[in-house]
């Protein structure tokens, strides 16, 4: 009988384990369910380190956040290669990922509010100018109408 000796896989090696993936997906359930993220995918680096990609909404499906495992370390990056966080606990990292997404969302909301205020202010200024013009017109026309009457 031939016995094949399998090399036991070390904790920080190989593709994502089901438990790890579950932790990540559970940790990011809120943005996935709320529609802030469109889905997720996985991949590997050239040397086999696993990566998890949190994707934006279709049709672009661009990477919002990327979690990679390098040895025992988990690294959180955005879609532009900025390292946002690194930790050896996936739970802590997923929490951080949620925080990053929440911040992004509130930044977008703040920008929308700012644009809205600017539009409103510009509209009100125009409206004020029209009203003043109208008033001036009335102050000129009314006395003349009075004379005519």
């Amino acid at each position: 009988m031939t016995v094949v000796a399998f090399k036991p896989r070390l904790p920080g090696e190989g593709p994502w384990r089901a438990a790890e993936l579950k932790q990540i997906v559970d940790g990011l359930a809120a943005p996935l369910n709320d529609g802030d993220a469109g889905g997720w995918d996985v991949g590997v680096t050239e040397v086999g380190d696993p990566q998890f990609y949190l994707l934006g909404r279709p049709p672009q499906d661009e990477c919002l956040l990327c979690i990679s495992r390098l040895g025992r370390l988990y690294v959180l990056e955005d879609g532009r290669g900025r390292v946002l966080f690194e930790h050896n606990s996936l739970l802590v990292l997923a929490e951080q990922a949620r925080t990053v997404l929440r911040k992004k969302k509130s930044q977008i909301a703040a920008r929308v509010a700012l644009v809205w205020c600017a539009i409103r202010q510009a509209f009100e200024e125009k409206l004020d100018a029209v009203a003043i013009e109208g008033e001036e017109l009335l102050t000129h026309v009314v006395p003349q109408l009075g004379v005519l009457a």
Partner: protein
Amino acid sequence: MQFARAAPEAKELRRRAGAWLKELRGRAGLSQIQLAERLGLKYYTFVSQVENGFGRVPTESMEAWARALGVKPAVFARRLLSFYEPELHRLLFEVKE
């Protein structure tokens, strides 16, 4: 008014961009780790993210990528634009006056 339907193929184009970058890196004889070192990245994982077609090379670092891969920055940026912003590329370089 007619809008160009660039979006549905965005994912596929990013994947093609990634394959092209991987080919360039291979020609330059660099590993993902070595390229990341040349780009001054802390980890090499972003190179993989881009090559796998999920991320984009940011505009501000296109020149560094081009030089690290031994390509002229203008040629590099123009080719990437054809993947990332095909409609803009078409208007800039393909539409004749």
